[in-house]
C-alpha cells in the first residue's frame, strides 16, 4: 500500500515534464476554456489535435493516460444516456419501422450527435487533467498553485500556509496508509472481518478502524507541529524558498499554443457551417 501516492506521477524525462508547473496549470485552464468554447466538432477537433500533441510530447504511454478515464466512466455514461433520451431534437430515429419514442423519452438524430459531442468534451477534459498530474509531481503542483495564487495574499489569504498544509497532507498519505494497514491487522487479530458480509456490515466494520486512525492522525499532527516549531517555523513572511520555479523557453511555446487554440476555436465557431 506504500506506493499509493496522490495523483499518478509518471516519472520520465520529457518536454511536458520539464515545463514549469505554473505554465502547465495555466495551459490546462486555457485548454478547458477552449473545450467549453467549442460549439461544434471543428473546435473539438482542434482540441483533440492539441491533446494528441501533448500526449506525444509527454512520453507517457497512451494506456496510462487512458486509464484515468476509469474514474469518470460512470459520469460519462450517465450524461450520455441523459442526452440520448431527453435531447429536444426533431428527427426521431426510426429502426425497422419502429419509432424510438416512448413518453418523454425521445431518441433523435440530433440527440445522438449531441451525445457524441458531450462525450468527446468530457473525455478531453479528463485526458488533459490526467496529463497534468501524470507529468507533474504533487510537490511542484502545490508550488505552482502557491505561486499562481500569490496575488490572493493582497486580500490576506494565507496562501503560503495553505500550500504548506496541502504538501504536508500529500506527504502524510503514505504514512496514514501504513497506519490503516496496521490498525486493520490489529482489528483482524481481534476477530474483525472486513471482507465478508453485505455493504452495511462492511461499513460497520470500518468504523473501529476510522476512530483509531483519527486519533493517531491528531497525535501525529501535534508531534509534527512541535517538530516544525523546533525547526524554527513561525509562519512568518520572511521565510525563503529553496526551490524556485523558473520559466524556460518551453513555457512561452505552450503558452502561445494555448492562445492559438482558443483563438482558433473562436474563429471556427464564427466562420464554419454548423454540423450539430
Amino acid at each position, binding site marked *: 500500500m*506504500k506506493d499509493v501516492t496522490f495523483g499518478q506521477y509518471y516519472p520520465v524525462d520529457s518536454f511536458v515534464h520539464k515545463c514549469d508547473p505554473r505554465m502547465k496549470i495555466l495551459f490546462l485552464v486555457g485548454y478547458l476554456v477552449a473545450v467549453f468554447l467549442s460549439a461544434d466538432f471543428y473546435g473539438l477537433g482542434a482540441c483533440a489535435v492539441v491533446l494528441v500533441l501533448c500526449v506525444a510530447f509527454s512520453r507517457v504511454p497512451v494506456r496510462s493516460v487512458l486509464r484515468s478515464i476509469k474514474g469518470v466512466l460512470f459520469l460519462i455514461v450517465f450524461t450520455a444516456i441523459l442526452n440520448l433520451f431527453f435531447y429536444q431534437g426533431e428527427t426521431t430515429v426510426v429502426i425497422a419501422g419502429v419509432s424510438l419514442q416512448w413518453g418523454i423519452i425521445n431518441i433523435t438524430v440530433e440527440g445522438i450527435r449531441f451525445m457524441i459531442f458531450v462525450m468527446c468534451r468530457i473525455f478531453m477534459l479528463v485526458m488533459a487533467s490526467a496529463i497534468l498530474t501524470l507529468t507533474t509531481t*504533487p510537490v511542484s503542483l502545490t508550488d505552482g498553485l502557491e505561486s499562481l495564487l500569490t496575488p490572493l495574499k493582497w486580500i490576506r489569504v494565507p496562501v503560503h500556509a495553505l500550500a504548506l498544509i496541502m504538501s504536508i497532507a500529500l506527504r502524510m498519505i503514505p504514512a496514514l496508509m501504513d497506519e490503516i494497514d496496521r490498525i486493520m491487522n490489529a482489528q483482524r487479530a481481534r476477530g474483525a472481518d472486513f471482507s465478508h458480509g453485505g455493504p452495511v456490515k462492511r461499513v460497520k466494520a470500518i468504523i473501529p478502524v476510522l476512530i483509531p486512525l483519527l486519533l493517531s492522525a491528531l497525535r*501525529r499532527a501535534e508531534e509534527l507541529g*512541535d517538530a516544525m516549531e523546533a*525547526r524554527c517555523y513561525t509562519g512568518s513572511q520572511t521565510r*525563503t524558498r529553496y*526551490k*524556485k520555479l523558473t520559466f524556460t523557453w518551453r513555457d512561452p511555446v505552450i503558452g502561445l499554443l494555448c492562445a492559438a487554440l482558443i483563438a482558433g476555436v473562436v474563429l471556427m465557431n464564427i466562420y464554419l457551417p454548423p454540423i450539430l
Partner: protein
Amino acid sequence: MRAVSFENVCFSYGNEEGAFSLNNINLSVEEGEFVAVLGQNGSGKSTLARLCNGLLTPRSGKITVLGMDACDAANTFEIRKNVGVVFQNPDNQTVASIVEDDVAFGPENIGLPREEIGRRIDFALSAVGMEAYRNATPARLSGGQKQRIAIAGVLAVMPKVLILDESTAMLDPRGRKEVMDVVLRLNKEKKMTVLFITHFMEEALLADRAFVMHRGEIVMRGAPREIFSRADELETYSLSLPAVGQICRKLRQKGFPVAECLQPEELAKEIERCAFRQNI
C-alpha cells in the same frame, strides 16, 4: 560559555500546583559537552528537552541557553536557531516528500538565501552520510535512514546545541550505532554540545557526563562510569547497568575475581586474565 543552565526550574503540565513534572531542577551543560540523560518512563526527560528550546516555559525558575533567557518569548526564535531538537519518531518530523526539500525546511524558516540553503543541505546530508539520497522519498527509506534525515533537517539550521530525545529508540542495533556515530563525530569535530536522552545504557557510556532523572528530579549526576559504579542506587530508579556490567556483577557475586567493567572488550580481557591465572 554555558550552553544550557537551569536554576530551580519547576514545571507542570496541568494547572494544579500539586503535581510537578519537573521539580526544582538545577543543571548546567558546558559548550562542547556530551551529556546523556537517563530515567524511566515519565521521569521528565522529554519535558526537560522541550524547556530547552522554548516549546514549553517553566512555572518558576530560570533557564539560560547560550546566555539568553529562555523564558523571554522575544528570545525564542534565536534560541531555536541555536538549539536543535530531534524527536523520537522520524515519521512525525518530516514535512516534505523529498529528502532535499525536507532538509531545506529549517534553513527556509530562518530566511536564508537560496545558495546558502543549498550549501546547508550539502553539509547536513554529508554529516549524516546521506548525500546519495538527496532526491529520495523519505517514506521509502528505512527507519535508520529516516532518522538520519531527521537529524540532517535539524543540523541544516546549524545549531550549537543538539538535543536528541530518544532518537534511537525505534532503531535496530545497526541503525542505533549509525546515529550514535554521527552524533559523536559532530560532538568531536564540530564541537557541538549534545544532550542525548536515551534508554540504552550502552549509549550513555559514551557520554562525558550523565544525568539520571526520577519523578521530575535529577537524582544522580556525574561521569557515566561513576554512575554505573552505583548499581544498587540505579536500581531504585528502575534503571539497570549496561548488559556487560550486569554480567560482571553476577560473576563477582559467584566469586569470580573479575574487575568491574562495562564494555565487552574490557570484560573479555578480564576473563582472559582470570582464566590465565587459574591455569597457572
